[in-house]
């Protein structure tokens, strides 16, 4: 039990973050799986390049990675999936605010961790077209502290671009994990309370610096 628990924690770690990044690109309609895979490949390459800039200040690397996440993730869809049914209880302004704060939370929590996982390469294990047109691109981290961890990216096409809508690390879906956390919070505190808590977390991160 301890052995798997290690894996769980390791995946949880990466999950609480976002993990190596995929996203959009000039994807044409030709072959969905191929386009999605290219997007993930480009993003991972870009990420590894940023991480290799050892002479940059940590803050610079972190903000570059945040910017990369902003381009490659469909935070609107992610927010909708994470809130699920509760989404209906949000007003239009609350939705916009939630997406903004959640985006900040996800990219920061990733950006601030990523430096520790720098001696890695990423192996592509294949891709799969899901029932309704999403594409899952499967990768495995090789080397570094996260060696051997499987990371799947689920992408959905939006206006001709393939964007990441979920990251599944060692079987643990980011969307599912946040959804279950927010579900309990929503029932206790409602949309306004949830947004406030997100804001609080983002603020405390600001004051505690890059760490």
């Amino acid at each position, binding site marked *: *039990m*301890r*052995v*798997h*628990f*290690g*894996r*769980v*924690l*390791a*995946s*949880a*770690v990466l*999950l*609480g*973050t976002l993990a190596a990044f995929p996203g959009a690109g000039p994807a044409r309609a030709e072959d969905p799986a191929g386009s999605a895979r290219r997007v993930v490949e480009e993003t991972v390459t870009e990420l590894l390049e940023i991480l290799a800039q050892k002479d940059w200040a940590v803050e610079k690397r972190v903000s570059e990675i945040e910017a990369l996440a902003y381009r490659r993730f469909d935070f609107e869809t992610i927010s*909708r*999936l994470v809130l*699920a*049914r509760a989404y*209906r209880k949000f007003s239009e302004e609350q939705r916009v605010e939630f997406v903004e704060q959640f985006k900040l*939370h996800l990219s920061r*929590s990733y950006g*601030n*961790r990523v430096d*520790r996982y720098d001696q890695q390469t990423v192996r592509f294990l294949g891709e*799969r077209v*899901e*029932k*309704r047109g*999403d594409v*899952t691109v*499967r990768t495995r981290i090789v080397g570094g502290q996260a060696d*051997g961890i*499987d990371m*799947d990216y*689920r992408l959905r096409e939006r206006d001709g671009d393939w964007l990441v*809508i*979920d990251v*599944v690390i*060692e*079987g*643990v*879906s980011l*969307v*599912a*994990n*946040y*959804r*279950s*956390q*927010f579900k*309990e*919070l929503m029932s206790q505190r409602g949309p306004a309370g949830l947004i406030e*808590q997100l804001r609080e*977390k983002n603020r405390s991160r600001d004051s505690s610096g890059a760490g």
Partner: protein
Amino acid sequence: MTHRLRALVVAIALLAGLAATGLGCATPQQPDPYEGINRRIFSFNEGADRWLVEPVAIGWNFVLPRFVQERFADFFDLTGMPVVLLNDLLQGKGEDAAMDVVRVITNLLFGFGGFYDTASWAGVPLNDEDFGQTLGSWGVPAGAYLMIPLLGPTTTRELAGFAVDTASTPWGYLLPGGSTVIVTIVRIVNFRSMLLEEVRQNRRDSFDYYVFLRSAFLQNRQMKVEDRKSSVEVADEDRGAESEDDLYYFEDKLELDLDGE
């Protein structure tokens, strides 16, 4: 002492099994019927970690470089191989079982007595099998989510699996009782010392750490039972988590049961 401990664990497993089949029935929609008690045990465990395990692990981490911690980890992986081998056989995975044997021999002969995982380096994968997964592969559902004092998260099925894994680990029978206790303590401390920053950040970044851990644990176990098919590929029944449709296309379903709510 270890034998009594083992008996205790088996007893807990049996009790938990009875409780889960008889009383609080876990369903994929409600995998955590004992949440109230679980949360109380969880805060006890968190306290034990903060005041005992984590400080010791910080000391361990301060004294020993990462490289040495990894050597320990590799060695402990090797000591777990009898259980992996047994469960590969129970699941009819002949090829994996053969690789397990190759791995043990390789690491013993060319890995400085098991302290260096040469096998992985040479492309022999480290299989991760245990009796909980074997039960799952036989169709036993995960059961209720349980938080065990000092041991952490598990489910009815995984707890039974853990009891069998403990009983089928040969070292307790071969080595004097005291030494296995010490080895277990070292293993836990070493393991925890490799996750200091991770746990800290998970605690800080999660909105409800209890739920965060539960979700991660259940999904991860599910994937292992299904053998690394991505969790989204798993059949919709008994995921302990949400089905693919629930997760990614909930809006379609929403239309259907909007009136029902």
